[in-house]
C-alpha cells in the first residue's frame, strides 16, 4: 500500500511539473509511435523541435516537455524503449521499480540490456566519427 502511494506521489508530482505544455519554441504534435511492449501504433503528444528542453521519459504514454514529464496511466501499454539516453525521472522510477516488485506494471517487455547486446552483435557502427 505504501509503495503504491509512493508511486502515486511521484506520478502526481511529475504531472505538477509538466502541465502538458511545450516550451515556447517547441511544437506540441500528435505523433505516431511504436510501443515496445506489443509493437502497436499509438498516438502520443510529443514536444517536437526541442533542443534545450529537458526532454521526456518514455515510461508514460503521453509525453510532455518543459520542466518535467507527466505520466498518464491506464492506457494499456508502457512504451519503454531502449535507454540509450535516459532522463532523470527514469532513474527515479527505475530505482522505485527495483525496490518494489509490485510496481512492475510500470515496466514493459523492453529489455535495454538485451537491446544493447543485440546492437553490439549486429551493428555496423557504434560510434560516430567527427566531421
Amino acid at each position: 500500500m505504501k509503495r503504491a502511494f509512493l508511486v502515486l506521489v511521484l506520478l502526481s508530482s511529475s504531472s505538477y511539473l509538466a502541465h502538458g505544455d511545450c516550451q515556447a519554441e517547441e511544437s506540441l504534435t500528435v505523433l505516431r509511435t511504436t510501443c515496445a511492449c506489443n509493437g502497436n501504433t499509438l498516438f502520443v503528444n510529443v514536444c517536437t523541435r526541442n533542443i534545450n528542453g529537458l526532454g521526456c521519459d518514455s515510461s508514460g504514454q503521453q509525453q510532455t516537455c518543459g520542466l518535467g514529464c507527466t505520466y498518464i496511466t491506464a492506457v494499456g501499454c508502457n512504451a519503454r524503449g531502449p535507454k540509450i539516453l535516459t532522463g532523470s525521472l527514469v532513474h527515479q522510477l527505475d530505482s522505485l521499480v527495483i525496490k518494489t516488485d509490485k510496481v512492475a506494471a510500470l515496466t514493459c517487455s523492453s529489455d535495454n540490456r538485451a537491446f544493447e547486446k543485440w546492437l553490439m552483435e549486429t551493428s555496423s557502427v557504434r560510434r560516430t566519427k567527427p566531421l
Partner: protein
Amino acid sequence: MFSVLLVLLMSGLMAQDAVKQMSPRPLKSSHEVALPVPSFSSYGDPQCDENLAMYHHLWTDKYGRTILLRFSQSGDESTLYKLPEEFAESTSFVDFSVTPRGDVEALVIDQEFHPIIFGFDSEGHVSSHARLETPEHVTAQHINVFPNGTVFFSGYYRSDAPAALVDRGYVGLFQTSGKLLKRLDRLSEKAKLEPPGPGRPAESATTIGRDGNVYLLTATKVLVISPSGKLQREIAFTKPSPEFSAITVQYSDGWLAISFAKSGKPEVLVQYLVVNASDGSPLGLYEPTEETGNNNVCFSRHNGFLFLKSEQGRVKLVTAPLR
C-alpha cells in the same frame, strides 16, 4: 479536349464513389517470423527500403535527439545513425528520408531553426551535411532525396513570420550543398500544407518511389512530383470517414498505400487504401486485425503489408497479403 477533361473528371468522381462504397477487408497473416531484435519504441513513421530493411527514429529521452536504427528483415544486421557530438546536442530532429536503395538522410534544425541535412554512409557515419538555404521564418517538416541527389524540402512559415505568411506552406528543391535550386510556390499552394495542430496527427507525409518521383500526401490528395519539381499528377482520394487522418503514403511498383488513422482506446484504428499510382484508381481498402497488429512498417505490391509486433520481448514480423 473538353471530352478528355470530362472523362478524367468523371473517372475521378467514380473512383471516389468507389471508395465510399468499399468496406475494409480484414488483413490476414500469411507468414510470421520472430526476429532476434529486442522490443523497442520509436517515434513517427518507420520507413523501408526495397530490400525491406526497416528504419526507425528510436525513442530516447527526447524527441529531438537524432538516433535512427536500421535493421535487416532477418534482424541479423543493424546500423545506428547518429549525429556527431557537436551537432547532437545543438540540433533537433525533424524528419528522415530513406531512398529505395537504402540511402539515409536526416533533417534537423539548429537553435535558430535553420534546416540542416545530414547524409550517412552505409555504416551509419555522417558523410555530408549542409544547411538548406530556406527563407527566414520557415520551419522544416519533410525531406526526400531524389536519385540525382536533389533534395525535396517542405515546411511552413512559423508564427514569427510576417502575418501574411504565418502557417503558409513552403516547398523547394535544393542541391546537396544546401543551395536553393527552385521554389515551388504553386505546388505549395496546391498542397495547402499546414503546420501540425493539436488534437490530431498532421495530415502530411512524403515518400520517394522507385519511379524517381516524390509522393506528397495531404489531407485530400497525393501530389506526384518529378525531380525537376514538376507536378506530374494529383491523386484525389476519399477518407473512409471524416474522423480519419491521412498519415502516411507508401509506394511499391506503381501502387500506393495510403494509411488513415484515428484515435482508439488506447490504440490507433487504421485503414489502408491501395490505389494505382498512375491514375489513382482505388484497388482495395484494408484494415489490420488482431493477428497483424496495427503497426504497418512496409508495403509491397507483391507481398502485401508487413507489420511489426512485439511478443515476449522480441520483434515479430507479420506478412499480410492483399486479397
